[in-house]
């Protein structure tokens, strides 16, 4: 699946997007896999209360299933307006 990062999450991980091969069942499972990869991921996902997730461009929850999802986005709380 395509995983995209925005704002400080993008800066901390160092890339705007990547393709991830995963069998993760939920967003939380995917985060656990990413955190185990490298310290920069571990740092970015250290406090998920500071993060939001969108699945296929819809705001979602961290316990949401990933079955059929093509794009996961991680970003901080939005500051539009």
């Amino acid at each position, binding site marked *: 699946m395509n995983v*995209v990062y*925005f*704002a*400080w999450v993008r800066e901390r991980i160092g890339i705007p997007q990547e393709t991830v091969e995963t069998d993760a069942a939920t967003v939380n499972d995917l985060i656990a896999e990413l955190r185990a990869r490298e310290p920069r991921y571990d740092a970015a996902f250290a406090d998920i209360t500071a993060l939001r997730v*969108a699945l296929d*461009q*819809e*705001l979602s929850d961290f316990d949401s299933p990933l079955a059929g999802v093509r794009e996961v*986005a991680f*970003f*901080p*709380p*939005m*500051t*539009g*307006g």
Partner: protein
Amino acid sequence: MTVRVQADPFDAGAELNRFAQGRGDVGAVVSFTGVVRDTHGSLREMLIEHYPGMTEKAISAIADEARTRWDLADVLVIHRYGPLAVGAPIMMVATAAAHRAAAFAAADFLMDYLKSRAPFWKKEITAEAETWVAAKDADEDALKRW
């Protein structure tokens, strides 16, 4: 309904005139324009990042929700991204309705939701530092009144 997400500047006055024109059924047009503010006198520019694709969908969903809650003749939302100078317009909303109560309430609702539910992120750039603007608890709390 018009939703525009763009890097280019816009003329809020011209947009508002165009929006308000030629509407026989409308008695009230309300607009809000958000402008880059230099809070500490040190801002060089504001950089706005967004999530292309989701941004347009999220704003359209918010505008659709406003139209189900209030009897609106039309809604306009323009939101910029990229580097913005101090004093530059960031975004505007305009609502048109038969009566002012609906136009005011819908514009207020749109602003509350655009702040915390449209995927934009603001970064303040000064000579010394680049700082992501943190979302405020008050902005999240503001959604509860709707």
